C-alpha cells in the first residue's frame, strides 16, 4: 500500500504541471459570454489533445496511450489544482463506442471525439423519464435503411454547442421496457433537431432540452444491436462516475480555500464554531478524496466499476452542498442583499449535484441492491 506517486507517476505529474502552467488560457474563468466560453472549451480540448493528454487510458489502437486510469486521475487533480478550464469528458462516450461500435463507427467517430473536432452530448433523460430512465418515450421507428426519431430529451448538457448526440430511443414498444431501447449516434444538425437552453435556478443556462421531430438516422448509426441501448447506457453511466474523474476534488479544495479567506477577512476565525465548520469542510473533502483514491486503485487493479461509485457520489453531493451552506452562513446578509455576488449562483449550482447522474435516492437504492436487500 502506498498513496504516493510511483517514480513514473511523479515524473508525469512534474511534466504535466509545467505544461499546464504554460498552457492554461489566462483569464478563461472571467469569460462571461457563453458562446466565447464554448469556443474556449473547444480550443482547450484541442490543446490538450495535441499534447497527448486526452484519452490517455484508452487502448492504443483507438488513439489512446494505454496508460492506467491513475494518469487520468493525476491530470484531473493537477488541472483542478492549477485552475485549468474543465477537462473534456471523452472517456465514457469513447468506451461505449469502442466496446459496442462497428469497425466503421470506431473509424468514423473515435478520432474526432478524441481530438475535440467533434463535440458530443448525451440524449438520455426525458421529461417523463428521469430516475426511471428505462421508461423513456422517444421512439425510433425503422423505415427502410433509416430510423425515424420522435420525442423530447431533457438535461442534455452542452446540447447547444454539441455537433453529435449519443441518443437513447425506444425501438420496440412490445418488449419489457429495458429491452426495447436502442442507442444511436446522431448529428445535431439533422433537420428536425431543435435545442432550447434550460435556465437553472442560479439564472444560468447550464443545460438544454432537445426536441426530435421526424429526424432520420441511418441504420448504420445505431450503436450496438437493437435493444442493446440499456446495457450501453449503463456502461456509459458507470464510467461517467469514474473514480479518475476527481477534478471536482481539487475544485472543492480551491473553493474551501476561498471560504477560509472569506472567513478570515470577516474576522470570523476567532469563533470556535466557525473554526469547527471550516475544519469539518476540510474533513469532508479529505474523506471524499481518500474514498476516490481507493476506488481508483481497485479499478486500476482490474476491478470493473461497480456500485461503489454510488458511495463517492453521495459523499461528493454532501461535501459540495455543505460547503456552499457554509459559504452562505459566513456571508450572512451580504449574499442576500447583493453586496456580494457569485456565491448564490454557486449555491444553486450545488443543489443539482444530488440530482444529476442518478439522484441521491437512486444511489441509495443501488447500494441497497448491493447489500442484497430484497426488492
Amino acid at each position: 500500500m502506498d498513496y504516493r506517486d510511483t517514480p513514473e507517476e511523479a515524473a508525469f505529474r512534474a511534466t504535466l504541471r509545467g505544461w499546464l502552467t504554460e498552457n492554461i488560457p489566462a483569464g478563461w474563468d472571467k469569460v462571461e459570454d457563453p458562446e466565447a466560453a464554448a469556443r474556449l472549451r473547444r480550443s482547450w480540448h484541442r490543446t490538450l489533445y495535441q499534447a497527448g493528454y486526452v484519452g490517455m487510458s484508452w487502448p492504443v489502437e483507438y488513439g489512446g496511450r494505454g496508460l492506467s486510469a491513475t494518469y487520468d486521475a493525476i491530470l484531473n487533480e493537477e488541472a483542478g489544482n492549477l485552475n485549468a478550464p474543465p477537462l473534456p469528458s471523452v472517456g465514457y462516450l469513447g468506451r461505449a463506442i469502442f466496446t459496442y461500435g462497428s469497425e466503421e463507427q470506431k473509424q468514423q467517430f473515435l478520432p474526432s471525439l478524441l481530438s475535440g473536432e467533434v463535440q458530443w452530448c448525451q440524449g438520455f433523460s426525458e421529461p417523463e423519464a428521469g430516475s426511471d430512465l428505462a421508461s423513456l418515450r422517444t421512439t425510433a421507428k425503422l423505415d427502410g435503411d433509416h430510423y425515424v426519431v420522435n420525442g423530447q430529451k431533457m438535461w442534455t448538457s452542452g446540447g447547444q454547442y454539441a455537433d453529435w448526440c449519443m441518443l437513447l430511443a425506444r425501438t420496440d414498444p412490445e418488449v419489457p421496457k429495458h429491452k426495447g431501447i436502442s442507442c444511436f449516434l446522431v448529428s445535431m444538425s439533422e433537420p428536425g433537431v431543435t435545442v432550447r437552453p434550460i435556465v437553472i435556478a442560479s439564472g444560468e443556462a447550464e443545460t438544454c432540452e432537445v426536441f426530435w421531430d421526424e429526424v432520420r438516422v441511418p441504420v448504420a448509426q445505431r450503436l450496438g444491436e437493437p435493444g442493446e441501448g440499456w446495457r450501453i447506457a449503463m456502461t456509459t453511466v458507470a464510467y461517467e462516475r469514474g473514480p479518475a474523474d476527481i477534478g471536482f476534488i481539487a475544485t472543492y479544495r480551491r473553493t474551501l480555500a476561498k471560504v477560509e479567506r472569506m472567513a478570515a477577512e470577516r474576522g470570523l476565525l476567532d469563533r470556535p464554531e466557525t473554526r469547527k465548520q471550516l475544519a469539518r469542510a476540510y474533513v469532508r473533502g479529505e474523506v471524499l478524496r481518500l474514498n476516490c483514491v481507493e476506488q481508483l486503485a481497485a479499478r486500476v487493479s482490474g476491478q470493473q466499476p461497480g456500485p461503489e461509485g454510488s458511495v463517492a457520489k453521495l459523499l461528493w453531493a454532501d461535501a459540495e452542498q455543505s460547503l456552499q451552506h457554509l459559504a452562505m452562513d459566513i456571508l450572512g446578509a451580504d449574499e442576500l442583499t447583493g453586496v456580494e455576488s457569485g456565491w448564490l449562483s454557486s449555491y444553486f449550482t450545488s443543489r443539482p449535484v444530488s440530482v444529476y447522474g442518478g439522484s441521491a435516492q437512486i444511489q441509495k437504492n443501488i447500494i441497497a441492491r448491493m447489500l442484497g436487500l430484497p426488492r
Partner: protein
Amino acid sequence: MRALLSDEQRMLKEVAGQIAGTSGPVNPGDLATLDRSAAWRALAQAGLLALRARDEDGTPVGSGVEVAMVAEATGAGLVPVPYLGSAVMAMELLALAGAEEEAGELADGVARAGVLLDGNLEGLAHLPGDGPWYGWDIDGADHALALLDTVDGTRVVRVPLGTGFAGADGADLTRVLARRDAPIDPATLQTVGDPLTAEDLTRWEALALAAVCADTVGVMRSAVTKAVDYAKERVQYGVPIGSFQAVQHMCAEAYVSTEAAASATNYAAWAVDALDPEEALLAARTAKAHCAGVAREVTETVMQVFGGIGQTYEHIAHVHTRRALTNRQVLGDEGAQLLRIADVRLTGE
C-alpha cells in the same frame, strides 16, 4: 499511487479476522463466560501483539496499516481483549522510549499494560497534575503507562493499578476501566526507557488515533452487516422489512458513513510510518473527526433497524453502540479533533 493491500497484508488480515471472528460475544451474556485469555494467546501466537516491536534497525515489525487491520478485526468481533491499550498504545510508548525488554514482554503476551487517560478520556495523562484519571483498556494489566514531565524531558512512567484505583462502571462492556481520584505522587513512579521527543509524541498520537479509528470501523462494519442480515429475514406485513425503501436507505446511509470512515482510516494508518509526524497526525485527526462524527449515528441506526429487540439488554446491538460511543470519546471526539485541525489549517499551529 496504489491504495491497495499487498498479498502479505491480505494474509495477515485473514489471520486477524479468523482469530477475532471466533473470540467475541455473539450475545452480551457471552461476555461473562468468554475465555478472554484464549483470544489473547491466539493473538500473541500469531505475532499480532508484536507488530509495534522494533527490529534491529529500529523499524516497527508491522506498520500502522497492519496494526489497523488487527484493530479493525478485534473491533468487528467486539473482542474483549486490550489490543488497543496494551499491544498498540502501551507498546508504542515503550518502543519509542527504547524500553526493549518491557516492550518484548508485551509483545509475547506474557505481560500487559494499559494506558492512563485524563478525566475526559481525551488524552494520555500528563503528570504531575490533577485527576481524576482513568486506567483504560487494562484487562489483565497491573499498571498503566502515563507521561511525566521531568528535568530530563517527558518520560514514560508506570502507574500501578493495585492501589488508589477503583473499578469504574464503563459504558464499554468489552474493556476494563478503573478510576483514580487520589493524587499521584510522581516520586513513587517508575520511569521506563529514555525521554520522548515531541516528534515521538506526535507519532504516538497518530498511531493511537488511527488504531482507535480502525477499531471503530470494525465495530460499525460488523454492526451494519448484522442489521442488513436482520432486515433480509425479519418479516412484517408479510414481507422482509429490508424490502421497504425507508429501511434500505437507513442501511445505505450507515454503509456510506462506514465506508467513508474506512477510507479515511486506511490512509491515516498508512501515514503513521510513511509521512512526516505532523502530516500523519493531521491524517489521523481527520479520520478520527469523521469516525467520531458518524460512530454514534451508525450504531443507533443499527439499533433502529433491529426495532424493539434491538433495544433490549440481551441483544448485541448495544454492545456495538457502547464500544462506538467510548471510542468516539477516547483521545478526543469530533469537536476536539476539528479544533485541532483548524489550528493547523487556519493558524498554522
